[in-house]
């Protein structure tokens, strides 16, 4: 299948937002999505963007059943390890179901890795849900290690009222 991987433009945010919702449904968390294309436009295309994004595009003749040509994306940002240095974190990797099995997911992930490598990143990290066997197999096939299984790493989060409470306890300047 003919497809192209390119950097997302601001105009792609509506499509990216559409696919974020599809991913949320797949991950069984549709009610967790609180942002729209407007936040993506503001946060991804400002002076110091919070993230970068790649999109996968197909020609008109291969458009989806609903008429979309933007049919996959990878959203990533740069992180840091005080042990190893620069890294890239792939927050989302998604390909619409009807376009899977054509190397598009690999294309998006590889492009993110290539971009990271150009910035001297020595790691590429991401998270995957433990029941998501197709994705776990996909990443294992790329040589990714599961640090939760091998080393016992757990992700911890403060949000909502707990985050507010923690912030209120900060020492006064």
């Amino acid at each position, binding site marked *: 299948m003919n497809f192209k991987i390119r950097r997302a433009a601001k105009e792609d945010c509506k499509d990216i937002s559409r696919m974020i919702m599809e991913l949320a449904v797949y991950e069984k968390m549709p009610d967790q999505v609180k942002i729209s294309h407007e936040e993506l436009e503001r946060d991804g295309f400002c002076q110091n963007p919070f993230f970068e994004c790649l999109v996968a595009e197909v020609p008109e003749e291969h458009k989806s059943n609903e008429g979309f040509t933007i049919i996959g994306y990878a959203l990533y*940002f740069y992180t840091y390890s005080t042990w190893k240095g620069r890294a890239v974190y792939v927050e*989302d990797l998604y390909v619409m179901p009807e376009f899977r099995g054509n190397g598009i997911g690999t294309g998006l992930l590889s492009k993110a890795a290539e971009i990271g490598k150009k910035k001297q990143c020595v790691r590429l990290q991401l998270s995957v849900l433990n029941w998501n066997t197709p994705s776990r197999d996909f990443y294992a096939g790329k040589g990714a290690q599961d640090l939760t299984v091998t080393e016992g790493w757990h992700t*911890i989060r403060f949000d909502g009222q707990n985050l507010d409470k923690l*912030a209120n306890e900060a020492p006064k300047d």
Partner: protein
Amino acid sequence: MDFSIRAANLDDCKDIARMIMVSGHVRACVRPNLEQDGFSKNPFFHGIIAEVPEQHRTREGHTKIGYALYFYSYSSFVGRSIYMEDLYVMPEFRGKGVGKALMSKVAQLALAAGCHQLNFTVLDWNKPSMDFYLSQGCFNVTSSLGCHCMRCEGEALEHLAQP
């Protein structure tokens, strides 16, 4: 005990590197280039330092006795987020609220920047740290949602990055 929390600057890199290297969980590693990675035009991280007055300095004469390193991240579900990469207090200064103060400051900076989440990782066998964090009101995303941390590096990353 009297201590202050402030933003890290270029001059603090030596002390941050010292504390990274002596952290109990770190094996011998190459000193990261903190100066370039944290204090150039598009920094990969930001830091805050915990400092004590001269009269409380360590035996070796250090007054910078703790730090937190963080960077901005993004959740496609909720937007702007912050990730706390390191939180460290020298052993002789623990139990005095310094770690809590550093973490609270990161939370405060998160809210000021419009972030909705503060994320970090902890090793499941590290009970003192896990208990501390849970007592502060966070939740374990890995245990509750089954979210696993994955990494590609070395040869696997080289192979992946080939166009």
